[in-house]
């Protein structure tokens, strides 16, 4: 892995996209790594398309601007593929992880991914419905991102999710989310 | 008072000597002065009460004259003085007399 991994998240207000970026940053703190997580701020409210970013690095992160050339693009809501160019600026060897029931090949075509770029899909919304009972795809997406990038181990991520959810939510919700993360991790597939 | 150098000033202009305004003798503002006629005085102390300059001297609960260091000569004491038997215990007179 490079010194710094830059991730761009595409989601909609209210889907927990920003939270996912935050949880990932938190989980990646281990091992003395440096992290950043930040959304692109605007007056947008629930439903509006938004972007959030992660930088994970082994050296101090001094860049304080949006990620322009992500190595990882995580699309939390596939309906955005029709309205937002999620490939913009993506690195030649970028990986795309898209929340969709569709096959990776189909998404690959839709994205027009370059030969060096890899495309993964995961049906995060269905997983969320089955595990949490609500359409919050951020937990399965986190699992998928961690699987694809190998930034942290699944066990570590689960532990961290438990820690960060533990403060605010009931055991039932936490368990649901942990399951969601685990299934996202397991069910993500490449095409 | 000698004008101070900036080095001698208290930090933040805080005045540490509470009530030191008494060093400022405002009696010099006066053009009329109150005169006390003791025999007409009922020692009601309204002059003391209403004086805006705390310039009425009270001793042992009785009117004892004016502190001309501070009296600005407004005349409220004379105006409000009920006196005795229709005669006021305070009247104002011109300062130069």
């Amino acid at each position, binding site marked *: 892995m490079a010194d710094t991994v830059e991730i761009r998240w595409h989601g909609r207000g209210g889907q927990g996209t920003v939270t996912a970026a935050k949880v990932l940053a938190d989980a990646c703190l281990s091992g003395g790594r440096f992290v950043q997580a930040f959304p692109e701020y605007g007056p947008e409210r629930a439903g509006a398309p938004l972007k959030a970013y992660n930088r994970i690095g082994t050296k101090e992160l001094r860049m*304080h601007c949006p990620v322009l050339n992500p190595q990882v693009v995580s699309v939390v809501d596939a309906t955005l593929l029709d309205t937002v160019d999620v490939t913009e600026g993506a690195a030649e060897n970028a990986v795309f992880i898209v929340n969709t029931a569709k096959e990776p090949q189909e998404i690959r075509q839709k994205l027009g991914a370059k030969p060096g770029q890899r495309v993964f899909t995961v049906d995060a919304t269905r997983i969320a419905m089955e595990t949490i009972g609500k359409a919050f795809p951020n937990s399965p997406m986190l699992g998928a991102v961690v699987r694809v990038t190998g930034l942290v181990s699944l066990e570590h991520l689960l532990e961290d999710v438990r820690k960060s959810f533990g403060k605010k939510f009931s055991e039932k919700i936490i368990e649901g989310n942990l399951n969601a993360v685990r299934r996202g991790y397991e069910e993500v597939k490449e095409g | 008072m000698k004008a101070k150098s900036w080095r001698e000033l208290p930090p933040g202009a805080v005045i540490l000597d509470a009530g030191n305004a008494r060093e400022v003798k405002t009696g010099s503002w006066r053009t009329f002065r109150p005169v006390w006629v003791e025999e007409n005085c009922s020692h009601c102390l309204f002059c003391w009460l209403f004086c805006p300059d705390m310039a009425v001297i009270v001793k042992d609960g009785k009117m004892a004259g004016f502190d001309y260091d501070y009296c600005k000569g407004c005349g409220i004491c004379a105006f409000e003085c009920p006196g005795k038997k229709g005669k006021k215990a305070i009247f104002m007179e011109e300062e130069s007399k």
Partner: protein
Amino acid sequence: MARVGAVTGNEAVAEALRQINPDVCAAYPITPQTELMQRFAAFVANGKVDTELILVESEHSAMSACIGAAAAGGRVATATCGPGLALMWEMLYVAAGMRLPIFMAVVNRALSAPLNIHGDHSDAMGARDAGWVQLWSENAQEAYDNMIQAVRIAEHMDVRLPVMVCYDGFIISHSIQRAELFEDNVVKGFVGEYKPLNPLLDLDHPKSYGPLILPDEYHEYKRAQHEAMTKVKDVVLGVAEDFARISGRRYGLFEAYRLDDAEVGLVILNSAAGTAKDVVDAFRERGVKAGLLKPRLFRPFPYEEVAAALKGLKAVAVLDRADSFGGYGPVFMEIASALYPLAERPVVINKIYGLGGRDFLPDHAAAVLNELVEIARTGRVRVAKEYIGVRE
């Protein structure tokens, strides 16, 4: 042992305030400072601090209450940004003129009109002449560290002046970054017990605060206030030295990044300095002798030290995230003043960037450095002041 956390700038500063545990905090919420005060209010609500929190009805009242509380004789903190700082303007001068060691987080935000809530230095630059010490911070770590050091600087008996700690709205206040946070007892030990000077609540020694001062003495008071400012540099360095001992992190009056043998350099405050440092590295790799100066103490401004750090350069660009309409950017004016006494000095240009939260991108820094290389080569300046990252 320090804790390593992934925190937002506001979260880090809220932690600092919790650990400092001021006696009184008076504040009014305003984006992007709001999250900071929300967190602090939660600390108060959950008994995590002893602080009496006054939730006032405006920033003007926030600073007024801080002034009353500080004069009363205890440790006082607040936080604001942008228009809130502007509304405090009158009281900022009073706090400094009364020599009250209030410390305040300023989450830099643009001023209206048009309305904009994003990162911009116009707020603190507008307050630079108010008599407050100003510390500027690149990231959450620096904001946290500066807030803790601000207490010692403000309360130092040679200083007794209010201090504002500035960091960029949203860019730093709302992004999660890695930061090392102290254990509570370390901060408690570092800031120490508050020592009141002329406390109003000392009934046995009644004092009057805030007299009317006439022209035959006001001038002297302002001269004395300036004198206190001249003591700040040494105190800042002394406090930084003590701070390095507990943290391993060294702070100065400014950060000189790869300046020693530099020929071209950028002067830039706060978060954009971080982005620019990566670009400086890239230029160095290409063999360009580039460097960067990031001011930390902006008031009082360390003119001699800055001049010494920049004097060997051929060309310098000062980047301002604020403007003085019809003038140069405020940082530029200081740098030009600092360099003026030198017999041989670098060519200096001014770029206005990033207003109202406009992203400062690596390309912007690269373009300015390329321009500086050209100026260093030819000695010719195309334009003294220019907006960058603006649509023409």
